[in-house]
Structure formats: structure tokens, C-alpha cells
């Protein structure tokens, strides 16, 4: 089967294998009534007051390896425990009538260390029970926001999962997974079965990065290219263009929240240094479109490498391999 058959248009039009599209449409064994993902938008949802955020002593951490938060009935957001990986990325899990999309897999690769596969399987089973589906009939797409190991380390846990497709670990495979021929400008639509996910290129932090927009919750997922913390910008020009694309998208589409992959800042704007395993006063992961626009306005004034604070995020323009924000606290006269 061609891997691009789940794409609603653009790429799906390019599929030449006859019958592939028809063969996959409306699988007969999905029992429950179809869920309407197209009306009464945006679907309401809530973020938790406080995510799990590590503990003063890592070995005394009693939180689960991943926190599973149901944003609404058909969307879960996962967060990795800081005592399992200091990167503690967020990972949305979007459910459609035919398939499920997992975005990002966290920073621990072995199931014996951190069983993301088991947690995702449980979450899918929960949803299927609620919605009268057979979990085996739901296809799982294991994708990631960008080509960094804190976002794909656990992909291998899904290798033997039936009815699952996972993204490859090269730029070509990633772009091919979404059937893109014109990265990063091209915007493709992924059909989860009545629920459309819009995907386009968002390079800048790394070249191989996507932005994901869920038309149901209208959450814009911006990966590591724009998140509540230190946006490490490796390539300024592509990043700036990606910001432009995000702003243009927000001009033409309703967006409820902008959401990144990590949180590295306190709710008072204090920087949590790289690698910290306890962030008690963490800022929320979701941002407003206004904050994105402000950051873009700020970015227009940036002319050279350095660290800039937009009020929401730190723009670390080409500084990753040289310096960071914080200072040695015991310096004296």
C-alpha cells in the first residue's frame, strides 16, 4: 500500500497505484457511529492547571513516566516525566474516525526504561472503548515534529505494532511520509477520518521540521521551532520564513492555541537552564496567536546572532554552540 493514501489531497492526487485509495476508504470493521469532526468548531478543550514537572530528587519521583491529559474527548496530550528525561517533551495524540496520529515520542528509547508504546496502546484502548471501536481497526501514524532524538527516540517501540506506520529518520523519509514534493512551502492535509490535520514545513531550528494544525481543536503545534522556552534557531533565514508562514496561516485560519514541544521558562519569565529536572513554577505550554505575532514583530528587529527575549520566548539566534542565558551565581567583585 502506498504510504500516502491517508493524505486527503495534494499528495493523494499524486498516488498512481490504482485502487489503493479505494481499498483504504471506510474500513467496514469500525463499529461505532462516525464522530463529527467538522461542525461546532473549534472543539472545546482544556489544558491542565499544572503538568507533571519533575521533583527535587529524581529518584523519589512518583509521577507516571508520561502524563496523559485528555484535552477533550478525542484529543490527548502526553508529557514525558522529567525524571525519565530532562527534555520532558509534549506529544499530542489526535483521534479520527479511521486513524490516530501520535506526534513525538519522547527521549527514552527502550520500553524497559519508559514504556511509551504501552501507554499509547492503553490510551487508544480507552478511547476505543468510549467510542465503541475496535483498537485493531484503528491505524496509528507515528510521526514527529522534527528530526531530533528527544522527539523520536521511542519510535522503535512501535516497529512491531500492527496497523501502524511510522516516520523514517531521514529528511527524505519525513517529507515523503507526508507526500510533500515542495518542502517547506507545500501544505498537505492529513485525513484521520473526518478530522483534517494540515501539515507544512517549518525549518529553522533544524531543516527537517513540520508545523501541524489540527482543524478540530484548532491547535497549531509548532514543535521546537517556536515554544515556551529557548527557541534554538540554527538557521535564521529559514526560521524567519517559517514564522512568516505561521503568521500568514493565522491570518487565514482560526487558531485557538499555539503549542510547542517543551516548556523551559517559569510563569514569571525566569529561564530554566538546559537539562533542569525540576520546574515547579512552569509556564503553560500553550500560547496565544497574539504571543506568536509579538514574537514575529520582535524577530523583525533582530539583526544578528544573540539571545533575545520577546516577552514569551527566548530567541537564541545561532547561539546554541556558544553560550546560554544564565550566569554563575557566585561571581563577586
Amino acid at each position, binding site marked *: 500500500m502506498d504510504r500516502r493514501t491517508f493524505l486527503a489531497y495534494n499528495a493523494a492526487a499524486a498516488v498512481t497505484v490504482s485502487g489503493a485509495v479505494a481499498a483504504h476508504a471506510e474500513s467496514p470493521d469500525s463499529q461505532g457511529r462516525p464522530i463529527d469532526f467538522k461542525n461546532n468548531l473549534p472543539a472545546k478543550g482544556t489544558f491542565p492547571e499544572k503538568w507533571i514537572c519533575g521533583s527535587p530528587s529524581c529518584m523519589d519521583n512518583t509521577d507516571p513516566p508520561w502524563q496523559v491529559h485528555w484535552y477533550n474527548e478525542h484529543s490527548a496530550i502526553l508529557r514525558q516525566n522529567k525524571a525519565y528525561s530532562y527534555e520532558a517533551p509534549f506529544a499530542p495524540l489526535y483521534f479520527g474516525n479511521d486513524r490516530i496520529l501520535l506526534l513525538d515520542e519522547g527521549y527514552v528509547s527502550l520500553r524497559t526504561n519508559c514504556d511509551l508504546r504501552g501507554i499509547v496502546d492503553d490510551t487508544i484502548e480507552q478511547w476505543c472503548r468510549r467510542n465503541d471501536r475496535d483498537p485493531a481497526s484503528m491505524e496509528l501514524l507515528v510521526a514527529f515534529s522534527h528530526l531530533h532524538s528527544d522527539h523520536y527516540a521511542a519510535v522503535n517501540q512501535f516497529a512491531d505494532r500492527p496497523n501502524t506506520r511510522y516516520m523514517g529518520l531521514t529528511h527524505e523519509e519525513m517529507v515523503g511520509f507526508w507526500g510533500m514534493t515542495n518542502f517547506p512551502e507545500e501544505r498537505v492535509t492529513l485525513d484521520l477520518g473526518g478530522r483534517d490535520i494540515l501539515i507544512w514545513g517549518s525549518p529553522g531550528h533544524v531543516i527537517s521540521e513540520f508545523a501541524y494544525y489540527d482543524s478540530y481543536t484548532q491547535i497549531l503545534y509548532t514543535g521546537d521551532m517556536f515554544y515556551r522556552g529557548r527557541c534554538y534557531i540554527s538557521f535564521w533565514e529559514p526560521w524567519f520564513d517559517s514564522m512568516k508562514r505561521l503568521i500568514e496561516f493565522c491570518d487565514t485560519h482560526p487558531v485557538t492555541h499555539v503549542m510547542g514541544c517543551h516548556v523551559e521558562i517559569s510563569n514569571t519569565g525566569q529561564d530554566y537552564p538546559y537539562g533542569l529536572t525540576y520546574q515547579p513554577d512552569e509556564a503553560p505550554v500553550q500560547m496565544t496567536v497574539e504571543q506568536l505575532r509579538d514574537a514575529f514583530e520582535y524577530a523583525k528587529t533582530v539583526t544578528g546572532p544573540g539571545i533575545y527575549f520577546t516577552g514569551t520566548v527566548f530567541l537564541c539566534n545561532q547561539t546554541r554552540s556558544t553560550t546560554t542565558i544564565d550566569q*554563575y551565581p557566585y561571581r563577586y567583585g
Partner: protein
Amino acid sequence: MPQDLAATKLTPKPKTPKRRYYPNGNPEHGYNPEGVRNTDSALPPEPRRPVMHDYACDGPAPGRIAFRWIHGSTVAATNTDPRIQIIQYNEDTFVLRQNVCVHWEAPFTYLLFGNKGALLIDSGATANADHYPLRDTVDAIIKRWAKIRGRTKVPLTVALTSGEDVAQNQGMRQFAGRPDTVIVPKPLAAMKSFYGLLGNWPQGTGRIDLGDRVISVIPTPGAHIDGVSFYDPYCDFLFTGDLLFPGRISIGNDRDFVASLERLKAFASANPVTSVMGGHIDMMFAPGQFYPRFRNFKPYERTLEMGPELIEEALIYAREIQGQDKMLIRPDFVLFNGVSPDQRTREWPEGVPRISVPRPF
């Protein structure tokens, strides 16, 4: 026959010389390691009277760090190592290490015994006794030591290599109210006057008498404004805390840092030093490679002990970067002067092989 009998009566039976009885083996035997001659291990297990140990010995008191340090685990939440690892260097010297998964700084704490009392150098990075039971651990070691040496009371002094350093002063709270305990005050002025260094800081030297084992207190500000180092003339150790250790040495004031290293160097040339014992390890066993902050898993750690020649090396390179905001990598330590503790550099020391260690899971 009777003549023979008389002859035997006249010549006394040759007497075997009276020898001391060694239940655990004679320490004078050549096959024993050096240190045996300096232990009390042949004593009866529960002496009735206090045993006075002889701390005078030729050269450094022998001892060994016979194990690898616990170094965390890939997933910190599921770590099962002890919260404090104890290595008994010799009968009167203990090295304690905080579990890397309790606190990433994983500081070392030293417990030294003398005939009149014990000294705890530094106190770890965690105040919560459930996470880091330093007080209970120290109490247990002291109790055991007191039993072996026939003591009922062992006065304890708790001293810090830097009062302001949160990676070393947190466990101190657990000792508040402990009987027979003197805690060296944290504020700079109070600390100076405790050691009698008010008038001659930082040139002077203070002393802590543990009973036949007198620990010298050498003011070494530079990493911290209130930094001190301790010298143990029994093991010939210099305990330098954050001033000099195999890791990322952040300099608080480069003028003081250079001056302190100069003082240490002078001290080390006037007194025998076998090892410089720092407060942490960040370096890997590959030269110049080190762990960044906040890591809970450090499988490739370098050993803790540093040779005294590294004082000289640190001094040379501290002088080199004095007045500049930069970091400098050396095989056994890294200096950060006026830059972020996460600073990176592309400069690599000349002639040092660049070995990249494998990445753990």
C-alpha cells in the same frame, strides 16, 4: 645414665622467646601491605578502654578507594542505588557520595576521625533527610567507629568548603541540635572568626584539632568568596571543594582564584600532598570531556583523586585566562571565567587526544 641425667639438669632447656600474640596475623610479616602497620585492626572487637590511635606515620596513611562511584542511571526515577555511597578510605577516613539521581551535583562529603573527635567536611546538596539521610549515615558511621575504638562520645565538627554553596551546605540543617556537635557558622565574618582568621584572611591558616590529627584550614576564595580548603596531615589529602576538582570549575573572582592556587601550591610544596580531593566530578575518563549540568547518568566519570601536580597546572591556566571572560578546557578540569556555566567553546587544548565517548541510551 645418672651422669647424663645430671648433665641435662644443669643445662637449662632453651626457652623460646616470648612473642606477642596476633590473632589476626602479624602485621610485621613482609607479605602484609604497608598500611597494616598503621591500623588497629588486630584489636579485640569491643575494647573496654578507649583505644588511642597512633596518627603519626611515615608518609601518607595508606588507604584505598576500592570501588567505582555510583553514577546514576539512564532513568533517574527508577534508580535503586544507595542514597549515599560510603567508601572507607582507611579506618579513620570515610568518603561519602550523594546519589546522582537524588541531586545531579552528586557532591562528595568527607568524614575524618581523630582521637578527640570527628570532622565532617561539606554536607551535600539536599536538605530533605528522606531523600538524603546524611545525618543518619554519619551517626551510624560514628557509632560504629566509637564502638571499635571504645568511645562513648565522639564530638563532631561540621565544616564547609564554602558556606554559600548550595551544592554543599544543604545537608547542614540536618545537624542542627545534634548533641556534641559544633557547626562552623556560614556567614563569612563568623566563619573567619571561628577559624581565627579575622585579622589574617586569606594569608593565615586556621586549625581544627581532632586529637593527634590536626586539620589545617587554608583560606581559598576564588570559586566562592568564602571558600576554604582543608589539609589532612594523616592521609596527606587536600580537600579543595569547588576550587579545584575534576570538573567544570566556575571562577567567582579570577584574582582571588589565582592567589588561592598560589597559596595552595606553596602549601603543597611545604607539606606532603598525595591527592587533591574535590567536591564533585564532572569530567569523563576521556581527557577534556565533561558532563554538562543536571545530568543524572554519568557512566564515564573520571576518578575523584587529583595529583598535586594539577595545582600547578590549574595555576598556569588560571593565570592565562585571568581578566578574560572565557572557558578553557584541560584534560582534568575545565575553567569557566565570567561566562555561563553552560558555555561552550570550539578551542581544544593542543596535544590532547579528542576522544568522543559513546552515547548512552
